[in-house]
């Protein structure tokens, strides 16, 4: 028995003296619980709202107040004409526009019903669905509160219109997200594994002793993955279109250009990982846990960014896939041009430059 306890004690030494094991057994449950608890949150909060109030009366003001005081909505803009609606959706910040018909209060009083239009940006169908539902519920509770004893209840007829994705098809959400994920997988994971494999095999050393310049070795290693990832992205767009009727409303050329930028970024991440990771296994773990998981959880692919706590929204801002997602949705669904995605493009570009700079430095240090 003594021998047995000795064995168990030895195992605890291994666990407590190895920082990595400690991180796994303590860090992972805590971080995953917090992450999933907060991220996997189907509630939507602080939805950016714009109002086109053609009536501007007491009732519409109170409805708007009721909406904004609920905590779910935040009034960002008052519109003066319905021409502005399309433009404001293209900018991407505002998720819902409420349109009150003229003489809203009067109609409600006189005819017992009035019309309201509820326009939602359905590039993220889950968010759009929820936003529309919340709005309706809040308006209904407002009416009940106004006339608790009325025998013939007053009615607000809400006509809902989902912009860019009328049938709320979730595939429109998944295609851009999947594109980001697969390109990360092919570019970052595969290239980092393939570079570390050469390190493990010792062939990297032989290549470095040869007249090839290090930069040529790296470029030679990543070009195949660049091509494969590019073909993959075309494949996803094509299949999305043929099988799921996902449109490409904007310029295909622009879309391909953005894909290229994102692949380039992912490849530089792969190179960065390979300069740090000594073995294929570690490269794989780093790509999986450091890139894939956050991409899946924080890029807005599976869970809406709007409903994340602020800290995670900050994390989501450093996820390249988040910006790529926005770009792809904007181009494919909203059909916008470069003017509407230049900001996201610039962020991706800046990230690429930064990562390339860091990995070149790391690579040089390793050679010293």
């Amino acid at each position, binding site marked *: 028995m003594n021998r047995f306890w000795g064995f168990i004690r030895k195992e605890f030494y291994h666990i407590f003296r190895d920082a990595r094991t400690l991180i796994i057994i303590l860090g992972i449950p805590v971080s995953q619980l917090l992450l999933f608890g907060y991220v996997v949150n189907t509630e939507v909060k602080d939805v950016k709202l714009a109002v086109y109030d053609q009536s501007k009366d007491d009732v519409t003001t109170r409805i708007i107040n009721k909406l904004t005081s609920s905590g779910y909505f935040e009034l960002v803009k008052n519109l003066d004409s319905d021409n502005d609606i399309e433009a404001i959706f293209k900018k991407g910040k505002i998720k819902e526009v409420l349109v009150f018909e003229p003489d809203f209060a009067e109609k409600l009083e006189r005819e017992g019903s009035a019309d309201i239009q509820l326009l939602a940006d359905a590039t993220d169908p889950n968010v759009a669905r929820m936003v529309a539902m919340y709005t309706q519920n809040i308006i209904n509770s407002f009416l009940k509160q106004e006339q608790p004893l009325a025998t013939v209840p007053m009615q607000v007829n809400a006509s809902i219109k989902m912009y860019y994705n009328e049938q709320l098809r979730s595939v429109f959400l998944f295609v851009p997200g999947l594109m980001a994920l697969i390109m990360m997988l092919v570019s970052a994971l595969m290239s980092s594994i393939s570079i570390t494999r050469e390190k493990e*095999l010792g062939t990297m050393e032989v290549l470095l*002793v*040869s*007249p090839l310049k290090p930069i040529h070795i790296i470029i030679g290693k990543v070009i195949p993955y660049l091509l494969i990832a590019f073909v993959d992205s075309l494949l996803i767009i094509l299949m999305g279109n043929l099988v799921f009727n996902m449109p490409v409303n904007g310029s295909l050329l622009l879309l391909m250009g953005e894909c290229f930028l994102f692949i380039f970024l992912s490849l530089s991440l792969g190179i960065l990982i390979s300069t740090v990771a000594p073995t294929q296994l570690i490269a794989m773990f780093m790509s999986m846990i450091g890139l894939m998981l956050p991409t899946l959880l924080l890029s807005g692919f599976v869970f809406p960014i709007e409903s994340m706590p602020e800290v995670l929204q900050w994390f989501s801002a450093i996820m390249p896939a988040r910006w790529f997602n926005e770009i792809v949705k904007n181009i494919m669904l909203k059909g916008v041009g470069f003017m509407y995605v230049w900001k996201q493009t610039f962020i991706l570009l800046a990230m690429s430059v930064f990562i390339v700079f860091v990995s070149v430095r790391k690579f040089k240090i390793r050679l010293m």
Partner: protein
Amino acid sequence: MMGNGKVIEVKNLVKKFGNFVANDHLTFDVHRGEIFGFLGANGAGKTTAMRILCGLSKPTSGEITVNGFDVYRQSEAIKRTIGYMSQKFSLYEDMTVAENMRFYAGIYKLPRSKRLKKEAELRDKLHMPEIMNKLVGSLPLGWKQKLAFSIALIHDPGIVFLDEPTGGVDPITRRQFWKLIYEASANGITVFVTTHYMDEAEYCDRVTIMVDGRIEALDTPAQLMQTYGASSMNDVFLTLARKAKKAVG
């Protein structure tokens, strides 16, 4: 071109990593066609020195030329004229023998005719014509070793650097491998070899023994054994290592 047939000239080579001195004023020459053994315990600084000679790392100070080229300014030229083989053999296991040869021939810009000649030579050497289309991963260790050596010589380098080339290989295979080394040396190729097998040290023309970053001894194996009154290179090495320990303690 290279005075006195010296292909490697090293004067006061120093390499520091921060405060740690990995190579402390090394001075030695290697002659053309010589088998030059570089011995030392792990961490004695053999690999560091070899990496500098191969152009993989820059020295902190010292005058070093390889094949007449300066290691500070002409590492590209050095890389073109040397061969290198590591303990790991460094072959692509998921490629055939011919594909491996073609890949390395391409890196050194070998013309096709020359590559085919090299392939034929290898076929003869291994006595197995069908081997060219076999995956390297399926070959026995000894063959991989021979193949790696042939590939290190594919561009007819003046010097070949072998970093513990016989590590993990059985004694018979090791002996066969040394035959290849002698052959290369007879063809005028300089062989610079690190090892910690002391019996192998006796196969070298001249031997350097490194202890704690310094060269403790440099001579022919016979001369070294005589100087230290030892019956084998192993004894020579132990004497030097013990002396180093005393100096520290």
